[in-house]
């Protein structure tokens, strides 16, 4: 039986009284890579933030089912503990909190288990090497003064440490140079397995050169209007979104 990791049924979401998602449906199975593309303002980031439980986004109708459990009422930290992860488009800077300290706290929070410092340091070092991040970044304050590329790498580093079941990548490729896209994509690829799933939100195709999607969805005006495979992404690259608006 194909177990659906994520099932979104007729989701409607508002922010500050304005409706953005207007009845969105989506299903993601374990071990699959899904891509969501769409014009600006379609609701891509809204979807990402709603899934993660951002308090500003209000669900007015519909359900989000994660591993068959309805999670509409769960707060962000509870959703993280269930295994949902969001790679932010604009990661926050947190002065005074080092990357290492933050990662250790997050890992313990998500797993609910104490962490052995030495084995954690070792794992952290390995993951940082994979993402071609200099060791000294572990001691820097979280995202403070990081370039766009460094911030995105840091997001993927967190994903690598937290090992989520569903990773939502919100425009991870935006603002990155060619090399950074390659490194980040390779990082995500390395984390992919048959048990977890990835939801990529993107404008461009560059990241898709490395992360081969199983499904591509077009999100226009708060709803998914078309689902296809990789060829759909190629078509958008050539023709744009006009025919779907």
């Amino acid at each position, binding site marked *: 039986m194909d177990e659906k990791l994520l099932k979104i049924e007729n989701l409607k979401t508002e922010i500050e009284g304005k409706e953005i998602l207007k009845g969105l449906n989506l299903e993601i199975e374990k071990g699959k890579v899904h891509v969501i593309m769409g014009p600006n303002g379609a609701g891509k980031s809204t979807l990402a933030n709603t899934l993660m439980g951002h308090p500003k986004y209000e669900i007015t109708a519909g359900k989000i089912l994660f591993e068959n459990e309805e999670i509409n009422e769960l707060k*962000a*930290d509870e959703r*993280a503990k269930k295994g949902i992860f969001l790679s932010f488009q604009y990661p926050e800077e*947190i002065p*005074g*909190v080092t990357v290492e300290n933050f990662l250790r*706290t*997050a890992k313990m929070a998500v797993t609910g288990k104490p962490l052995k410092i030495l084995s954690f340091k070792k794992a952290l070092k390995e993951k940082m090497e994979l993402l071609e991040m200099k060791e000294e970044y572990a001691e820097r304050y979280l995202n403070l003064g990081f370039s766009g590329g460094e911030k995105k790498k840091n997001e993927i580093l967190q994903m690598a440490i937290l090992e989520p079941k569903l990773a939502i990548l919100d425009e991870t490729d935006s603002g990155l140079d060619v090399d950074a896209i390659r490194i980040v994509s390779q990082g995500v690829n390395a984390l992919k397995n048959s048990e977890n799933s990835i939801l990529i939100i993107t404008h461009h195709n560059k990241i898709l050169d490395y992360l081969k999607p199983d499904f591509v969805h077009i999100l226009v005006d708060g709803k998914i209007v078309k689902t296809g495979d990789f060829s759909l992404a190629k078509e958008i690259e050539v023709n744009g979104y006009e025919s779907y608006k």
Partner: protein
Amino acid sequence: MEEKVRKKTYIDDLDRGIYDVKNDFNYSFKADSGLTPEIVMEISKEKNEPQWMTDFRLKSLEIYNNLAAPPWGPDLTDLHMENIVTYVKPNTEMKGKWEDVPEEIKKTFDLLGIPKAERTSLAGVGAQYDSEVVYHSIKEDLVKMGVVYTDMETAIRDYEAIVKEYFMTCVPPSDHKFAALHGAVWSGGSFVYVPEGVQVDIPLQSYFRLNAPGAGQFEHTLIIVEKGAKLHFIEGCSAPKYNVNNLHAGCVELFVKEGARLRYSTIENWSKNMYNLNTKRAIVERDGLIEWVSGSFGSKVSMLYPMSILKGERARAEFTGVTFAGKGQHLDTGCKIVHAAPYTTSNVNSKSISKDGGVALYRGALRVAPNAHHVKATVACESLMLDNISRSDTIPVIDLMNDEVDIGHEAKIGRISDEAIFYLMSRGISEKEAKAMIVRGFVEPIAKELPLEYAVEMNNLIKIELEGAIG
């Protein structure tokens, strides 16, 4: 309920007192503290002081009686000036009873893991914490280096000439009313003298503050670091210091000589009934450096403006501090720098946190004298308000009498961003812990400068303050 408790203690003391104090307590700020020259002379006699100090105290009392209280700053109405007498008299058994100590104080001791022996001492109710043993072993190493580290009373006797040369020359009694009061009734405190060229590598911590009557309220710290010498001195502790007599008018005088370096760290946590009107000042000679590291918690009202006078060329001052104002607290703190010589530099990094209606005010002054050219000064004050009812203000005064200066001033006031909280929560961290993490991150620059156990204590204090366990 606290009111009744306090009255009980006063009446107990009155029976033993030599001075008749009225039973009626009028809780408005009175100039007359009932302090007479006779009482001041008795204090001096009890301490076996040389005549010059007795005269000094009497002169200070005169100044005190003639000066008006500062017409600015927080409301001092609840300051019980008339009780000062009861607590500075020699032979006064000023200690109350453990049962009378407020619950919240006892709870904090628990939360901070303060050992039993220290608790009674910190609460001003009993046996003095015996630090003699620890002190002695450090003393031997210091003596070998020629460093003098003793309490002020002993210093006047054994190092009279030095003390006389420096005592209250940095903060003269005429400076303000509470300096004058201090000059008249000061008691206890530390005296440190570091000879030329000596580098004291281990931080010295104050031990003497609780060993004299009225100590913890009017203690005097005098530190002299001679040419080319180095010292790190730590004063205070994170446990709340409770006293029924609610005025703290201590004085800290720091003399940093040519090319010398002094780091003065404090963590203060006064109980929430206290008026903390401490005066701290440093005079820095050419090529000298003063570093202030300060964490202020507690007290009902604080007026605290560590001041650095950069007297010699290329003298430097660095200030890093955090103030935490919770419910019912009004903390008026800041930093004053006077550039009195060319090529001097100063850097102020002041942070404040306010919560539950607490008021945290930064009041800074930066003065550049006419002869002080090529001065470089920066001030960064940052406030974090944890809710909508707290207050935070910045009153910086910049007074430049020379054009060739490079001044930077930055003030930031903000709340914990919702986005930041969401970011942390999305990693599994609870909302409460996310806020605590952000606040800890905010005070990191200060925690970083403190020795580990003080940094840990400070973080514990913040945790307790955030959880509202006290008050």
